[in-house]
C-alpha cells in the first residue's frame, strides 16, 4: 500500500511544481493538477480496497520518525480511507468540471484547489489536535480563495461579501479553538487526540471548558443553526463546483474532525452533539421550505444533512458496530447527492427553482437529478435508506423516540421541498435558456450518478439483509430505464409479459390471502396496462415509474421481514408518485401525495422500529409477539401509516387530486391497484396484532369510526363533485372506508367483506376510471355538466359505466351486492353499533353520486360540440369489457375467490365463517344465492323487455329536442341538460358536513411552517457582523446548556 502521507505529499509537490510553470502553460498545469488529484484518489481507493475487502488493519503513519504523542501521526483506517476517497474524488471531479474556469484563472487557482483538497484530507488523517487546527486554517484560506475566484467567474460581487463573512466567522472560531487546544494540552500534556482521549480530559482541571472550546469551534465549522449565515451565503454565491466541495468534502471532513474530538469528550458530550445536530437538521430544512434560489436551498439542505449526520454522531453510544455504517450511509448519500446537485446547477442558467424545468428536455439529466434527490431523501435502494432504517431501529430500541420523531419530521420536510422542486422541473414552463451543454460537466455529473448507484449496491451488500438492488422485481423496473429509447408499445409488451411472467413463476408460493393481492397486482396490473397501448411515442418516464410501483407492490407481498416490507412500501410510493406526477395539472397533487405517503411511510418505519426493539431482523409475523406497553403504540403507528395509503378520512386530502389529475391509464393503477397496498398492510398488521387497547379504548373501535366516517364523508363529497374523475376519487375514499370498517370489525365476515372489496374495488374502479378517462379524452373536459347524451356515441363506455355503478352501489344482482350482504352479516355479530350507523347513512349517499355519474355524462342532452366524437380508443375499451366480464363472473360465482379465502380465514377467525352449500351461501344469520338471484332477475327483466320491445316494435328514436318542455322547443342542449349542482337539496341539508375542515387543518399546518420559516430566516440579515453575534450566541447557549447553568 502506498502510504497515506503521499496524499498530502502529492498535492503539495504538485502545487509547488505549478509554481515553476509559466503562466501560459495552462494545459500542462491543469494536467499536473489532475494527475495529482487522481493519484490522491488512487491512494485512498487502494486503502479502501485493502481495509474494506482484504481485511488489512488500520495503520498509524508516523512523521519525523518519532512515536505518536511526540510527533504528529496520521491514521489510515477504513473511515479515513473512505472519507479521503470521497474528498479526493470530489476534488478530482470538481477539477474536471471546472476545466474552463481553471484554465482562465491560471495555475494559481489550481494551487488553491489542490491545497484545499489536501487540507481536507489532512483533517481526516491527522491524529494531532493542533495539526487539525493547521489543516482547518488551510481549508479556511483555500475556501476563501476559491470564493474569491468564483467571484470573478460570475462577475458579481456577491461571493466576495459571503467569503468575507466566512472569514469573520473563522477568525472567531480559530481563536476559540486555539485557546481550547492550549488548555487541553496543559491539562493532558499532549496534543495527540488519542492521548487526550486516554488522559480523561474531562476529569482534569479546566478540562471541561477546554474541551468545550475545542468542541464548539469545530462544531461551528459544521455550520450549526443559527451560526451559519455565512455558509448559506457562500452556498448561494460561490461557483457550484466550489459549493460541491464545500458541501460534500468540507462537510465530511469537519464531521470526521468532530467525531475524533468526541473521542476525547466521551459519552457525556454526545447529547450536546445530538441536540445541536437535530435542531440544525429540523430548522434548516424548515427554512429551506421558503427558498426560491436553487443554490441557497441546496445550502440549507446541506446544512441540514450535516446536522443529521451530527445527530448520528451523537448516537455513537448506542449504535455499536453499525455506527459507521449508519453515519457513512447518511454522509455519503448527502455528499454524492449534494455534489451532484451543485454540479447540475452549473448547467442550469436561471437561479430560480422553476428555471430547472430547462432540464425537462434531457431525460438523462432528470435521471441524474432524481438519483441525487433519492440519495438525499434516503429512499431505497440508496445508502441513506438503509442508514435511516438502522438508525430508527436503534433509536426506538433505546427509547429515544422524540429524537426519532424529529429526525423523521425533518426528513419529511426535506423530501417535501425536494419533491416540490422535482415537480417544478417536470411541470413548470421551460425557461428561454436551455441547459448549458458541456460534455465534460455532464461526465462529471454522471460520475456522481454512477457513484450513487454503486453506493446503493454497496450498502445493500453491507446491510446484512437481502440487497435491494438484487431483487428481481426492482431490477426489472430499473431495466426500463435502459429501454427508454424504445417505443411505448414495445415497452408495454415487455411490462405486461413481465407482470404475467412473474405471476406464473411464483403463484404457487402464496397463501390464499396473498394470492388475491398478487393476482390484483400482477395480472390486474397487466390488464390495466392494456389500456396503455392507446398511447403513442416513447412515453418517457412512464414505464420506470409504473414498473417501480409494481415492483414495490410485488415485493410488498413477498416481504416477510419488516425491512423488506418497508423498502417495498417506499418503492411503490415513489413509483406511484412518478405516475401521478405525469398528469397535466397534477403537480400540487403529486406533491401532497408524496408528502402524505412519506409521512405515512415514516410512521410505519417508526412503528416497525418500535416493534423490533432493537432486533436486527424482525419478521412481520413477530408483530404478534410485541408486548403490551409497546404494542398499542406500534399498532397506532403502523395503522396510521397504512391508513394514509388507503386515504382514511383526515389523511385523505391528497387522493382526489392525485387520482383525478393522473393520466387516463394511470388513474386505474393508482386507484384500483395501489390503494390495495394500504389494505394489505392493514391486514398484515391486524392479523399480527389483533385487537389492541390503549387507555381502555380498543383501537379497532377507533378504526371502525375512521372507516365509517371515511365512507360517509367520502361519499358525501363525491355527490357534490362536478369533476367526473374527482367524483370517482372521492368514491374511492368511501370504498376504502368500507373496507377499513370491515377489517376493523375483526371478525370473519368483516374480513371476508374487506377482501370482497379488494377484488370488487379493483375491478369496478379501474373500469370506471378507464371509461370516464376515455370520455374525458374524447370530450376534452372532466366537468360532467359539459357532457351529456353520450350514450349513443360511446355505447361501450356507457355499458361499462352502467355495470360499474350497479356493482359499486351494491344493487343486486352484481357482485357489489355480495359485498353488502357479507357486510350486513358481518355487523350482525359485531358489538359496535354507533359507527355502524354512520355506514348506514353512507350507503344511500353512494347511490346518488353514481347516478349522477351516469346521468350527466351519458344521458340527457348531447352537446353540439360533441356530436362528432367517437367511442373511446380500442385499447381503453378492451380492458373495460374484460372487467365487465369479470364482474359478471364474479357476481355469479363469487366462490371462486372467496371460498379459499374464507377457509384460510378460519385459521384466524374460526367462528362465523360462511357455509358454501352448492349454489347457496349461508351465514349464521342469512343466506344468499347469487346464481338464483341472477336468474330470477334476468328472467323477469328479459320477459318485460322483450314484451315491451314487441309492443313498441315500430318505435323510432325521436330528435333530441323532441321533449315535453313546457310547450316550448328548447334550442340549446345546455339549457336543457340539468346537471350542474345536481343535488342542490342535499347540499342545502347536509352541505355543512363537507366543509373542507381537513384541508383547512393541513393547510394551516403548512402555512404555519412556511410562516415560521419566513420569520426565522429573518435571522440571516446578510450582515457579517450579525453572523458573528450569532456565532457567539451559539457558543454561549451551548455552554449554558451543557454546563447546566
Amino acid at each position, binding site marked *: 500500500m502506498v502510504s497515506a502521507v503521499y496524499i*498530502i505529499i502529492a498535492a*503539495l509537490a504538485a502545487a509547488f511544481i505549478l509554481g515553476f510553470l509559466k503562466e501560459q502553460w495552462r494545459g500542462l498545469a491543469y494536467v499536473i493538477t489532475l494527475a495529482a488529484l487522481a493519484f490522491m484518489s488512487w491512494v485512498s481507493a487502494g486503502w479502501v480496497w485493502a481495509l474494506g475487502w482484504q481485511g488489512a488493519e488500520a495503520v498509524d503513519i508516523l512523521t519525523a520518525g518519532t512515536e505518536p504523542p*511526540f510527533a504528529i501521526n496520521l491514521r489510515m483506517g477504513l473511515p479515513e480511507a473512505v472519507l479521503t476517497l470521497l474528498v479526493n474524488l470530489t476534488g478530482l471531479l470538481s477539477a474536471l468540471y471546472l476545466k474552463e474556469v481553471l484554465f482562465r484563472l*491560471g495555475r*494559481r487557482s489550481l494551487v488553491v484547489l489542490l491545497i484545499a483538497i489536501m487540507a481536507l484530507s*489532512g483533517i481526516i488523517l491527522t491524529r494531532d489536535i493542533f495539526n487539525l487546527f*493547521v489543516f482547518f486554517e488551510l481549508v479556511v484560506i483555500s475556501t476563501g480563495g476559491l470564493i*474569491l475566484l468564483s467571484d470573478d467567474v460570475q462577475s458579481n460581487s456577491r461571493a466576495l461579501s459571503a467569503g468575507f463573512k466566512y472569514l469573520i466567522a473563522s477568525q472567531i472560531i480559530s481563536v476559540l479553538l486555539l485557546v481550547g487546544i492550549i488548555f487541553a494540552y496543559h491539562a493532558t500534556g499532549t496534543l495527540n487526540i488519542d492521548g487526550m482521549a486516554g488522559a480523561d480530559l474531562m476529569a482534569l482541571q*479546566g478540562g471541561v471548558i477546554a474541551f*468545550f472550546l475545542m468542541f464548539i469551534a469545530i462544531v461551528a465549522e459544521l455550520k450549526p443553526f443559527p451560526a451559519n449565515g455565512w455558509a448559506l451565503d457562500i452556498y448561494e454565491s460561490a461557483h457550484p463546483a466550489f459549493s460541491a466541495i464545500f458541501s460534500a468534502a468540507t462537510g465530511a471532513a469537519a464531521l470526521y474532525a468532530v467525531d475524533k474530538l468526541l473521542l476525547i469528550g466521551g459519552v457525556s458530550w454526545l447529547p450536546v452533539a445530538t441536540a445541536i445536530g437535530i435542531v440544525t437538521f429540523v430548522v434548516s430544512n424548515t427554512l429551506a421550505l421558503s427558498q426560491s434560489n436553487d443554490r441557497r436551498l441546496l445550502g440549507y439542505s446541506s446544512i441540514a444533512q450535516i446536522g443529521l449526520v451530527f445527530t448520528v454522531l451523537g448516537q455513537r453510544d448506542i449504535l455499536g458496530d453499525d455506527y459507521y455504517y449508519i453515519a457513512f450511509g447518511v454522509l455519503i448519500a448527502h455528499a454524492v447527492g449534494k455534489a451532484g446537485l451543485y454540479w447540475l446547477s452549473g448547467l442550469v442558467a436561471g437561479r430560480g427553482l422553476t428555471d430547472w424545468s430547462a432540464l425537462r428536455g434531457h431525460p438523462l439529466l432528470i435521471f441524474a437529478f432524481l438519483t441525487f434527490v433519492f440519495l438525499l431523501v434516503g429512499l431505497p435502494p440508496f445508502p441513506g435508506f438503509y442508514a435511516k432504517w438502522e438508525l430508527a431501529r436503534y433509536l426506538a430500541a433505546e427509547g429515544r423516540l422524540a429524537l426519532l420523531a424529529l429526525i423523521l419530521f425533518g426528513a419529511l420536510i426535506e423530501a417535501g421541498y425536494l419533491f416540490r422542486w422535482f415537480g417544478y422541473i417536470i411541470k413548470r414552463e421551460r425557461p428561454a435558456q436551455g441547459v448549458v451543454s458541456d460534455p465534460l460537466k455532464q461526465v462529471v455529473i454522471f460520475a456522481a450518478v454512477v457513484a450513487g448507484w454503486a453506493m446503493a449496491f454497496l450498502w445493500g451488500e453491507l446491510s446484512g439483509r437481502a440487497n435491494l438492488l438484487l431483487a428481481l422485481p426492482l431490477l426489472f423496473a430499473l431495466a426500463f430505464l435502459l429501454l427508454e429509447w424504445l417505443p411505448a408499445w414495445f415497452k408495454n409488451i415487455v411490462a405486461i409479459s413481465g407482470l404475467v411472467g412473474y405471476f406464473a413463476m411464483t403463484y404457487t408460493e402464496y397463501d390464499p390471502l396473498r394470492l388475491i393481492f398478487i393476482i390484483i397486482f400482477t395480472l390486474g396490473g397487466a390488464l390495466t396496462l392494456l389500456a396503455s397501448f392507446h398511447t403513442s411515442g416513447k412515453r418517457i418516464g412512464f414505464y420506470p415509474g409504473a414498473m417501480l410501483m409494481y415492483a414495490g407492490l410485488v415485493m410488498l407481498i413477498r416481504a416477510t421481514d419488516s425491512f423488506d416490507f418497508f423498502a417495498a412500501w417506499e418503492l411503490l410510493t415513489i413509483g406511484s408518485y412518478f405516475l401521478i406526477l405525469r398528469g397535466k395539472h397534477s403537480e400540487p397533487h403529486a406533491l401532497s401525495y408524496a408528502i402524505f405517503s412519506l409521512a405515512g411511510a415514516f410512521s410505519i418505519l417508526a412503528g416497525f422500529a418500535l416493534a423490533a426493539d432493537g432486533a436486527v431482523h424482525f419478521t412481520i409475523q413477530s408483530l404478534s409477539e410485541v408486548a403490551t406497553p409497546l404494542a398499542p403504540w406500534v399498532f397506532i403507528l403502523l395503522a396510521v401509516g397504512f391508513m394514509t395509503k388507503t386515504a382514511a378520512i383526515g389523511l385523505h386530502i391528497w387522493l382526489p387530486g392525485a387520482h383525478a389529475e393522473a393520466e387516463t391509464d394511470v388513474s386505474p393503477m393508482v386507484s384500483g391497484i395501489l390503494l390495495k397496498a394500504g389494505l394489505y398492510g392493514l391486514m398484515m398488521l391486524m392479523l399480527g396484532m389483533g385487537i389492541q387497547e390503549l387507555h381502555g379504548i380498543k383501537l379497532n373501535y377507533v378504526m371502525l369510526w375512521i372507516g365509517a366516517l371515511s365512507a360517509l364523508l367520502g361519499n358525501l363529497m363525491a355527490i357534490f363533485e362536478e369533476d367526473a374523475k374527482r367524483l370517482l376519487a372521492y368514491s374511492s375514499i368511501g370504498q376504502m372506508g368500507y373496507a377499513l370498517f370491515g377489517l376493523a370489525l375483526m371478525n370473519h365476515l368483516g374480513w371476508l367483506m374487506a377482501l370482497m372489496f379488494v377484488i370488487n374495488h379493483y375491478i369496478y374502479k379501474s373500469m370506471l376510471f378507464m371509461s370516464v378517462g376515455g370520455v374525458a379524452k374524447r370530450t376534452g373536459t372532466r366537468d360532467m355538466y359539459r357532457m351529456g347524451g353520450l350514450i349513443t356515441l360511446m355505447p361501450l363506455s356507457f355499458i361499462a359505466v352502467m355495470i360499474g355503478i350497479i356493482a359499486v352501489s351494491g344493487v343486486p344482482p352484481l357482485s357489489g351486492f355480495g359485498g353488502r350482504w357479507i357486510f350486513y352479516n358481518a355487523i350482525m355479530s359485531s358489538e359496535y353499533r354507533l359507527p355502524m350507523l354512520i355506514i348506514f347513512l353512507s350507503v344511500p349517499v353512494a347511490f346518488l353520486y353514481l347516478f349522477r355519474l351516469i346521468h350527466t355524462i351519458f344521458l340527457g342532452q348531447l352537446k353540439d360540440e360533441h356530436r362528432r366524437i367517437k367511442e373511446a380508443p380500442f385499447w381503453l375499451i378492451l380492458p373495460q369489457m374484460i372487467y365487465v366480464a369479470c364482474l359478471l363472473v364474479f357476481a355469479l360465482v363469487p366462490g371462486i375467490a372467496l371460498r379459499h379465502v374464507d377457509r384460510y380465514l378460519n385459521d384466524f377467525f374460526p367462528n362465523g365463517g360462511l357455509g358454501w352449500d352448492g349454489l347457496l351461501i349461508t351465514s349464521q344469520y342469512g343466506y344468499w344465492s347469487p346464481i338464483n338471484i341472477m336468474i330470477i332477475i334476468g328472467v323477469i327483466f328479459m320477459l318485460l323487455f322483450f314484451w315491451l320491445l314487441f309492443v313498441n316494435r315500430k318505435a323510432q328514436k325521436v330528435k333530441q329536442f323532441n321533449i315535453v318542455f313546457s310547450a316550448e322547443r328548447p334550442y340549446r342542449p345546455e339549457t336543457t341538460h340539468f346537471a350542474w349542482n345536481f343535488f342542490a337539496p342535499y347540499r342545502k341539508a347536509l352541505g355543512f358536513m363537507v366543509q373542507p375542515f381537513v384541508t383547512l387543518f393541513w393547510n394551516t399546518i403548512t402555512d404555519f411552517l412556511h410562516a415560521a420559516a419566513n420569520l426565522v430566516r429573518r435571522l440571516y440579515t446578510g450582515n457579517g457582523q450579525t453572523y458573528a453575534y450569532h456565532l457567539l450566541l451559539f457558543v454561549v447557549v451551548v455552554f449554558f446548556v451543557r454546563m447546566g447553568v
Partner: protein
Amino acid sequence: MIKRAAALLLLTIIGGIFFTLLTGYSADENLNLTAQYYAENTAKDIGAANIVTAIIVTYRGLDTLGEVTVLFLAAAIVGLVLARSRGAGAAQTVKAPVGELLTTGSHSLLPLILLLGIYIFVNGHLTPGGGFQGGAVVASAMLLLLLANPVKRFNHRLISIIESFSGFSYVVIGVLGLLLAGGFLDNRILPIGEFGQLFSAGAIPLIYSLIGLKVGAEFSSILSNLSEAEEL
C-alpha cells in the same frame, strides 16, 4: 445601543468562560510528558540546540509544512486577486520621487538586512529565530526597496520560482525522510553531526533555510502584489 449591549453581554459571558479557565490554571511544576520527552531527547535524537526549532521543523514538521503552505496559499490568492484587478496596468500614476536619502540608504542597507535574515534562518537550530523570522527579515529588505522606489516592479516570476523551488525541495526532503529515515520529514537523512555546530541537526538547517527562502519569497510576493495594486 442594543448592539453594543448585546456585544457586551455576550463577551461578558465569554469572558466568564475565560475567567474560569484563568482561575483554574496553575502552572506545571514539572515538564509534562511531551515536553519532558523533547527536553531529554532533542539533543541526542535531533541534534538541535533550539528545542523549539526541533519541534517546529521535525517533531511537528507537518504543522510547519502546513504553515508554509498557508503562506504559499495566501500569496497565491493575493497574487491572483490583485493581478486580476491590475488590469492592463497602462495608466500608472506617476508617484512623486522619493527622497535621495531613502534611496541611497536603502541600497546600502539592503545587503546587510538580507545577510541578517539569512543568518537568522541558517542558525535556526542553534539560536532563537529561524526560517520564519529570517524570512520576514528578508522580506523587509524587499519592503525597503519598495518604499524607496514605489514604481519598481519585482520580478514576479523569479519570486515564484524561488517560492516553488524551496517548497518543492522541502517536500522532497520530507519524502527523503520517509524513504531513508524514520518517516516523513524526519531530519535524520543527514548526519546529526556535532551538537551546537552550524552543520548539525541533520536536515534542519537545510529545511529551515528553505523555509526562510520560501517565507521571504512569499512575503515579498504579497507585499509587492499589494503595493502594485491600483489605488481605488
